[in-house]
């Protein structure tokens, strides 16, 4: 949870900076500066997965993010990633290893001043992942609490099985709803944060085990729902520009 609250405070900062950009503009914009729109491709990486790979021994991951501006408000967007994650729960220890690809659209709802290019957006993605699960070990759940002693004291000792069993050829498909912000911090350099709600469409599970973690989808719950986020830094490569018509020049206060 500590990490999570950290991300949300960063998000608050981001939102705040968007507001600050807006306020920098003089209230009185009588000079009709034709607004220009830059089109191009923006490529970046997820900092969360990158940094977590450094401090968490049970995690290795990389996500490349990219978007391409189609119209003034709509972007073609996608993520490509690879993840290896070991989960050590009370009863289970397993490793998920695989790759994923997500593609979809972002809709920018933020009205930028002049030629600023910040984003407050919603979007959708279609996600596909292929992966393997390795069941490293498991402890058999015995619920023979028949001794009048301490709680959950099984009669026979716990048995942990070093299964070391690999299930390959697994896959999952899902859709995501995305909400996020992107702010230009230097020329052409953007930082962004997004949260995602996910719903599994198909999930090829191993025999006598489950996909408890899916690369790109993250943790699975009892149903089909999931959630995630990323925290990106990206670079914008401009390709061409358009100019607004005079009628819709600089927006008024």
């Amino acid at each position, binding site marked *: 949870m500590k990490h999570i609250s950290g991300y949300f405070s960063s998000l608050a900062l981001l939102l705040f900076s968007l507001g600050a950009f807006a306020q920098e503009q003089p209230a009185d914009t009588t000079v009709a500066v034709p607004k220009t729109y830059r089109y191009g491709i923006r490529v970046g990486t997820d900092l969360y997965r990158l940094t977590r790979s450094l401090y968490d021994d049970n995690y290795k991951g990389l996500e490349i993010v990219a978007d391409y501006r189609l119209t003034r408000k709509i972007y073609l967007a996608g993520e490509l990633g690879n993840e290896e994650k070991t989960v050590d*729960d009370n*009863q289970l220890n397993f490793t998920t290893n695989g790759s994923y690809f997500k593609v979809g659209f972002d809709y920018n709802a933020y009205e930028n001043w002049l030629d600023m290019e910040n984003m407050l957006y919603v979007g959708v993605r279609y996600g596909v992942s292929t992966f393997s699960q390795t069941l490293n070990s498991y402890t*058999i759940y015995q619920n023979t609490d028949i001794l009048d002693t301490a709680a959950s004291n099984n009669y026979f000792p716990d048995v942990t099985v070093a299964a070391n069993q690999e299930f390959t050829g697994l896959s999952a498909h899902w859709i995501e709803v995305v909400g996020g912000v992107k702010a230009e911090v230097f020329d052409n350099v953007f930082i962004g944060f997004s949260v995602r709600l996910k719903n599994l469409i198909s999930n090829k599970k191993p025999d006598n085990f489950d996909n408890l973690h899916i690369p790109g989808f993250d943790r699975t719950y009892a149903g089909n729902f999931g959630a995630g986020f990323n925290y990106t830094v990206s670079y914008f490569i401009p390709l061409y520009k358009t100019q607004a018509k005079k009628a819709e020049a600089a927006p008024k206060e």
Partner: protein
Amino acid sequence: MKKTSALFTLVLLVAASFFGCEKDDICAEGTLTTPSILIEFYDRDNTTVPKAATNFGYFVEGMDTIKITGNATEIRLPLRVDTTSVKWGLILSTPVTGQDPILNTDFLEFDYTTQQLYVSRACGYKTNFFLTQGTDSAPNPLLTDSPDESELWIQEITVDKTNIEDENEAHIRIFF
């Protein structure tokens, strides 16, 4: 714009609530996990009438004895998940007025095979047991008396279910 911001906030809030429940890793009570053998006691003279055993005790050699205070018409015997045979000692207690109760121990040895089945993230795996088919010369469970006693208190054993997969119905009936 307003609609989009509202949707954005909603997505954010719902996602945040998901992060909040990361640690629901407790196997819920009532989940069907590793079953025990359910044994019911019946009257040897009137075989359809359940019979209660008073202050019954049971144990595996070298381990603690489980004592049931009061009357019991059924007991649950766990099986070992890491072996294929378990020998339970069953202690029948016969009250004697003014004296200590008379204890009589019989042994039941169960032979079985096991199967590990996935349950859930929180519960992990459970083990189901399958009692091997007994014969006249080698019954399963095998009933033996304790060395220092002359008489078996168990008169008859009926195996109703050899697949130990749940505890809904009795697997074994004991008549005494």
